Structure formats: structure tokens, C-alpha cells
């Protein structure tokens, strides 16, 4: 089963123009900041929003084109919403059976068919409860069962974990991973959390301002981000520049030495943990040393993330111990150094 879509739609001042392709059993993550148009794309795929142009085709069946719009209830799809949207007046079993009932199954067989799904998502025995009586994680599992119960061709997940607390999110993510592995149709996951995308998706498209800015496997996107947004998400400092031999002249000024030769427009990516800080210019004259100023320091787990300005704006992660030993405070002048071998370079 495949989903091919070209979604063109104007939402207020945001023009969305996104092309997607999802194969059999594949999970595509649509990653992007809030307001980038991700959910709009998903609503178009669901049929809740007719596109201004473009087309949506599933297994050669046209769902949307210039002269055709299949209403949502005639599309073979399941959708999981951010805040589960379980019907508050129905029991969990009735919620899960809803799709079967509305597609014509009688009440009793529909309830019977819902049972195994409750078992699969770990809600056995909770079928008679109302959504209000479930925890957030349980409700989201029920919502997943409700979306999957009809064995739809397309599964749409709209920020399915953003309403959960961190601990629950971890557990639900693991289960979702398992269910998506079993799922034979095409799945589209919209998220602003790169960990969701990395953990669950086979491929990622990054959407900013209504356009696809990067596409690839999660590993590719994580290793070689092409926008500041993705770089920040995956914890990299991204510096555009022009390569000449073994060094890159940054667009913002400054030179960065690299391990391999590069030519033409490139991205330089630096991991914060590979940046070392000193109070004095370090001995041994490493090639990448810059005098910078510390503008902000925020604790980040066992490290302190230091934002630096100057010739080469960087972010450095130093251990809390070293941070204390150096006696750093915002406004301090420091020397930052990075080994050339720790610098990633790839063409723009």
C-alpha cells in the first residue's frame, strides 16, 4: 500500500506546499516547528480539509485531485489525535468499536472485535470504563486501538505523545514502535519532537514555513542537518560557509580547519560536547582556537550548556565540575577549541 500526496493549501498567511510519499509498512515522520503546516498536511490527508491544489492518491485510488474530494468518512484511514479525543459519553470498548459500527458492523460483533485490540494495547479489563477514568497514557493507547481497529490503509498520527508526561511518553513511544512495526499500511507521524521521529520513523521530512526543507532517513537527518532548526533539535551547531582545501571560510566570518578537503558551499556541523573551553589560550597551538564570550549558561543534565558569541558562534557542553573549576559566569571571556577531526563538513 502506498500513499502519494502533493498538498497545496493556503492557511491564512501560511502557504503550504508539501510532497509526500509513503510506502507499504513505512512510517514517515513529518518533523517541524509549531505553525509550519504539519497538521494542515495531516488534515488534508484525512480529508478534513480540502486542498487548494495537488492530489492525494492511495493505492492508485484518488482521494483528492482538482475534480475529486473523497470525504473523510469514505477514506480507509485511522487517525490518532494529540489529546486522544476519545468520545467522553462512550465506554472504551464503544470508542474502539466506533469505527466498525459506523462502517456498518452490528453492535455485538463490533464490541467483540474491539476486545482483542484492547488486549493488544494493554487495556484488557478496562473496556467498560469511560475515557475520563483513564490515565493519559491509557487514553492514548485506547485512541491508537480505535484508529487501528478497522485495519485502515493509512494511519495518521498527529503529535500523539505531546500531551503526555515525560515518563509516560517513553512507555507509549515504545509501544507505538511495536504497533507501527506490525502495521502493514502507510503511516504518517506528525511531530515536533526529533526523538519521536528518530525512534519511530523509517523516513523523515522536515517542514518549515510550509515547505519541505530536508528529507531522508532519521540517521541522515540527525547527522547532517540542513537548517538551524533541525541542527538545534539534534543538538548540533550548524555553520554555513565555503570550503577551500582543508579549511572553511564561514559566511559569518572566521575560519574553521577541517580534517578533509572541501570545496564550494558547505555546512560545518559541530557537536557541543566536542568544544573545549579554556581561560588562557591553550598550549600546543591547535588549529581551531577562537577567543569568545560566554553569553548564557544553562544546566543540562550533568553538563552545562554554554552559549558563546564572537568570531565563530558556538555552543559548548562542559561538565558541571569543569564549569565550576573554570569559575565561569556569563560575560566571561574564554578560549574555545575544537579538533579538526571533530568537525563534520557536508555540501549545502
Amino acid at each position: 500500500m502506498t500513499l502519494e500526496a502533493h498538498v497545496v493549501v493556503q492557511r491564512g498567511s501560511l502557504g503550504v506546499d508539501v510532497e509526500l510519499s509513503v510506502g507499504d509498512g513505512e512510517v514517515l515522520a513529518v518533523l517541524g516547528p509549531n505553525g509550519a503546516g504539519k497538521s494542515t498536511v495531516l488534515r488534508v490527508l484525512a480529508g478534513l480539509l480540502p486542498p487548494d491544489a495537488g492530489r492525494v492518491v492511495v493505492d492508485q485510488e484518488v482521494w483528492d485531485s482538482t475534480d475529486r474530494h473523497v470525504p473523510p468518512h469514505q477514506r480507509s484511514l485511522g487517525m490518532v489525535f494529540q489529546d486522544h479525543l476519545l468520545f467522553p459519553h462512550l465506554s472504551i470498548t464503544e470508542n474502539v468499536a466506533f469505527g466498525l459500527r459506523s462502517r456498518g458492523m452490528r453492535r455485538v460483533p463490533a464490541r467483540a472485535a474491539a476486545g482483542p485490540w484492547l488486549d493488544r494495547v494493554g487495556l484488557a479489563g478496562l473496556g467498560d470504563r469511560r475515557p475520563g477514568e483513564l490515565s493519559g497514557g491509557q487514553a492514548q493507547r485506547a485512541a491508537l486501538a480505535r484508529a487501528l481497529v478497522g485495519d485502515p490503509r493509512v494511519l495518521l498520527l498527529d503529535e500523539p505523545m505531546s500531551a503526555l508526561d515525560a515518563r509516560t511518553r517513553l512507555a507509549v513511544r515504545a509501544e507505538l514502535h511495536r504497533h507501527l512495526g506490525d502495521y502493514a499500511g502507510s503511516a504518517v507521524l506528525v511531530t515536533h519532537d526529533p526523538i519521536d521521529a528518530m525512534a519511530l520513523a523509517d523516513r523523515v521530512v522536515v517542514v518549515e514555513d510550509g515547505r519541505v526543507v530536508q528529507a531522508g532517513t532519521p540517521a541522515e537527518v540527525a547527522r547532517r542537518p540542513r537548517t538551524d532548526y533541525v541542527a538545534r533539535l539534534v543538538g548540533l551547531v550548524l555553520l554555513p560557509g565555503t570550503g577551500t582545501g582543508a579549511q572553511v571560510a564561514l559566511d559569518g566570518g572566521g575560519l574553521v580547519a577541517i580534517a578533509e578537503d572541501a570545496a564550494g558551499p558547505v555546512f560545518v556541523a559541530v557537536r557541543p560536547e566536542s568544544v573545549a573551553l579554556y581561560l588562557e589560550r591553550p598550549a600546543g597551538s591547535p588549529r581551531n582556537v577562537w577567543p569568545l564570550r560566554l553569553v548564557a549558561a544553562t544546566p543540562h543534565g550533568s553538563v552545562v550548556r554554554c552559549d558563546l558569541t564572537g568570531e565563530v558562534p558556538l555552543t559548548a557542553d562542559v561538565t558541571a565540575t569543569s564549569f565550576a573549576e573554570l569559575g565561569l559566569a556569563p560575560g566571561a571571556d574564554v578560549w574555545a577549541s575544537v579538533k579538526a577531526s571533530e568537525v563534520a563538513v557536508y555540501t549545502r
Partner: protein
Amino acid sequence: MRRRPDPGVPLPLLVPALLAVAFLVLPLVGLVVRAPWSSIGPQLAQPEVGQALRLSLVTASLATVVSLVLGVPLAWVLARSRIRGRSVLRALVTVPLVLPPVVGGVALFLVLGRNGLLGRPLYEHLGITIPFTTTAVVIAETFVAMPFLVISVEGALRAADARFEDAAATLGADRWTTFRRVTLPLVAPGIAAGAVLCWARALGEFGATITFAGNFPGTTQTMPLAVYLALQRDPEAAIVLSLVLLAVSLGTLLLLRDRWLGRGSGQGIAA
């Protein structure tokens, strides 16, 4: 145990609220105080009283049913559809609220009367006349009371989270199924509140009824009409009848509250 004033109500709200209660309740107290309690038994024993009360309850309930059947779909159209001229439509729906009921009664004559736009063909071809029948009472009450239902149901529909309807659509439910199985249960408390308002308004309806349906004991004389005419002859009897109407309507509403709204009130709609 000493009771302190409820710290939850700020003074600028508490004072007007108490004034409002006094304003609404004192006339009632007046009725109760001035009621001729000694003669209340013989007053109630009059067959016309039971007749008028029964007719009032039956017609108000029928008017509420008609209002539900027609008014809930209208509220949906006003709240959810994208048809043009919706704001004009909403304004028209509220016309009976501002129209003096007597004028409403005359207007009903002009449409459904023997010489009315629809009434004339009905009369000439089918021999059906609507004025001065119990049907006319129900029509007059529905005309005046239905806007109350429509407006409160429309408000409930607007307040309800429309994304539940999206969710139902992605689960294969067409709009009618969605309305039946999702929207309707979600706004049920709003519909119940609207129906209560509608019923209460229909029960107290006077002007449109006496104009369009006339006043005849047993067929069209509802309690408010009986009260008004009693007022011409014997104000004390009018007070007694008013109290009976009041007691019965309050009793009915309290009973329904326990039956319908007693449970599930804590079950909100997830935001």
C-alpha cells in the same frame, strides 16, 4: 459551629446577586403571603382547574417535543453549516422573542387561520381549521418557546469541541451518524437545558395562545388563560391558580432534574 461568609464570592458580585435573588423571589413571596389559604381547597376542587392544568401540561410538553424535533436541527444548521445568510437566519429565529406574543398570535392567524396563507387552502380543500383547537395551542406555544431551545442548543453546539466530529469522520461516520452518535450526546446537557427553558416558556404562554387558539375550557383554556380571567372576577382565585401552576412546574422540573441530570454532570467534555 460558626459559619463565615463564603470566601469564594467577592462582595461586588455577592451584593448584586443577592439583590437579584430578592428581586426574583419577592414577588413569589408576595403571592404566597397573599394567597387565601383557607379557600384553597374549594378553589382546587373546581373541575376547570384540573382541566386547565392538564391541558397546560400536555400542550407545553407537546410544544417542547415539536421544538426539539425541529429546533435541534435548526440549531445545528446555525452552529455548524456554512450556508449563506446564516446571521440573517439567526436574527429571524429570534423574532418571536421580541415580538409581543399577541402580535405573534395575529401573525399565526395570517398564516394558519381560515383566511391565512396556508390555512385557507387547508380549510377549503381538506376542511381543516386550526384556530380554536388544542393544536392551535401547541402551535402558539411552539412559536413562542422554540427560539429559547434553538438559542441554547446553538450555544451548546458552539461550545462543544468540533474536533470530536473530526475524529468521528476519520472513523468512517458520515455527518448524520456523527450528529446522532457524537454531537447529540455531547450537547445533551445543553439540549436538556434548552428543553426546560422551552417547556417553562410554553407553560406560561398567554398572549399568542389566547389570540390564536382562543379561550375555551377543556380545549384551549390553559392555566395562564384561566389565571387571567380569574383575575377579572376574583383576584384571590387568580393567586391560587398561579400558585398551582408554579408548584406543578417547579415540581416537574425538580423531578426531571433528578431523573435526567442527576448523574453525569461531573463528566465534562475533554478540552
